[in-house]
């Protein structure tokens, strides 16, 4: 009987606490994700030259454990115009977010700060393969992530697309 009553006492004590639960679908009342939260991968946008950071070097594609990415590069038109430092630029990029396991390996191996785990985590779709995100959708995710978190590249000097420096050297 004593064990039962102590249990009841614990339950009653909890009645005077503030609730720890959150109302999920309500955007105001839900629990915020942490800064480091790894949602689905997204491509970042270089505002200085108005192009993606990604050069299509394929290193993330090769390192992905689930092989959920494909990428294709092209010659950067802005480079020939002298507006960008990137010789090559991403042409097509597709991530099958349904297959992505959110491991963050692509972010870790990327040398160009081009891919980043966004805070996006709700991506249910009504169509099969609706989560196969192309370049534009991934950039949209990335731009949203950048503006929400005030994202800065980890190696700003190396990865900036601004061609000024190169002109100076030459």
């Amino acid at each position: 009987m004593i064990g039962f009553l102590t249990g009841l006492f614990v339950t009653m004590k909890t009645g005077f606490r503030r609730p720890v639960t959150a109302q999920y679908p309500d955007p105001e009342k839900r629990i915020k994700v942490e800064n480091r939260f790894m949602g689905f991968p997204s491509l970042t946008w270089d505002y200085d030259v108005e192009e993606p950071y990604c050069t299509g070097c394929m290193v993330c594609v090769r390192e992905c454990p689930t092989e959920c990415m494909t990428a294709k590069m092209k010659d950067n038109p802005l480079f020939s115009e002298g507006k960008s430092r990137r010789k090559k630029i991403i042409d097509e990029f597709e991530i099958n977010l349904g297959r992505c396991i959110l491991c963050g390996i692509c972010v870790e191996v990327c040398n160009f700060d081009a891919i980043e785990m966004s805070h996006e985590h709700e991506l249910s779709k009504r169509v099969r393969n609706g989560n196969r995100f192309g370049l534009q959708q991934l950039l949209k995710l990335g731009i949203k992530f950048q503006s929400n978190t005030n994202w800065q590249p980890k190696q700003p000097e190396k990865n900036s697309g601004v061609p000024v420096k190169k002109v100076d050297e030459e």
Partner: protein
Amino acid sequence: MEINKTINSDNVDLMINMGPQHPSTHGVFRLLLNIDGERIIDVKPHIGYLHRGSEKLCENERYAQVVTLFDRLDYVANLNMELGFCLAVESLMELDIPDRASYIRVILCELNRIASHLLFYGTYGLDVGAMTPVLYAFREREKIQGFFESITGARMMHNYFRIGGIKEELPDDFNNRLSLLLDEVSQGIEECDMLLSKNEMFLARTKNVGIISASDAVDFGVSGPNLRASGIARDIRVSKPYSIYDRFDYGIPVASSGDCWDRYYVRLEEIRQSIKIIKQAMSQMEDGPILAKVRRIARPPKGEIYFRTESPRGDFGVYLVSDGSDKPYRVKVRAPSFANLQSLQYLLKGAYIADAVTILGSIDIIMGEVDR
């Protein structure tokens, strides 16, 4: 197989199929029970519903990628799984891990052990018919998972440990948050303990139910809390210390009778010991590098190793054969739940059918690890 429990079964029998989608089978696990009246006379466990061929997949992935597969073995103690694999590769490469990385690993692994045991506590309450404990357990577990999220970026599949260290430095508020968390969790554990452990109905359901003797447990390859509940003080952290577990002072909870209540209480006690370890690790931890000097693509030398770690469920062994390339030649996982689950055939024979779920729950299986 000879099971030395004799049952009088003149007239048989009714076969009951339990699972694979039974709410209390902890995953996709199927049991075929032959019953005679209220007694179970024969048990046929069926596993393999979650078989993903992890061991085979490992052979096709680079070492850094294999860590993500290990996350998905025991999916409630992911970091302990990662630790087992990373330590196996590291000792194959004979790497020295920076102290700080080891401390962070130990802290996170012990937190994960707490989270895993809390999950057991909650679901075990459900298994025996108590609805409230799961809410208390998940409240505490949620805090731990939120804490993991702030460090590793994920709540469950962390992919945080690297071969040679860890992925990234801890956030700035780590120490404050951790000590706050520990206070909350240890308070929560006491509440959990008060809520269920001495409850008369719970005692009636679990005391002297599903008894396995020490010698039988050893024979079945049972390990971890289940073995310690039978009275054998075997813990790899103490008997063969890996990582930096020899620097801490903590006890191994051991019970004697090997019934369901003992298996339950050993786990609850282990949570307290884990908190003790974390507190010591926090005070001992110093600044320093977090990653050993390793090449980005790990290539362990030709050789093989069987590395044992203590996962929340028992002896977690990784048998790793390397042929010198960047992919493992063979990875064999000795999953503690796999061996623990074998003893179910023995435990359930002669038990009442009402106790089947109680006994199954007390073994604390995770099907991701059993089926691999």
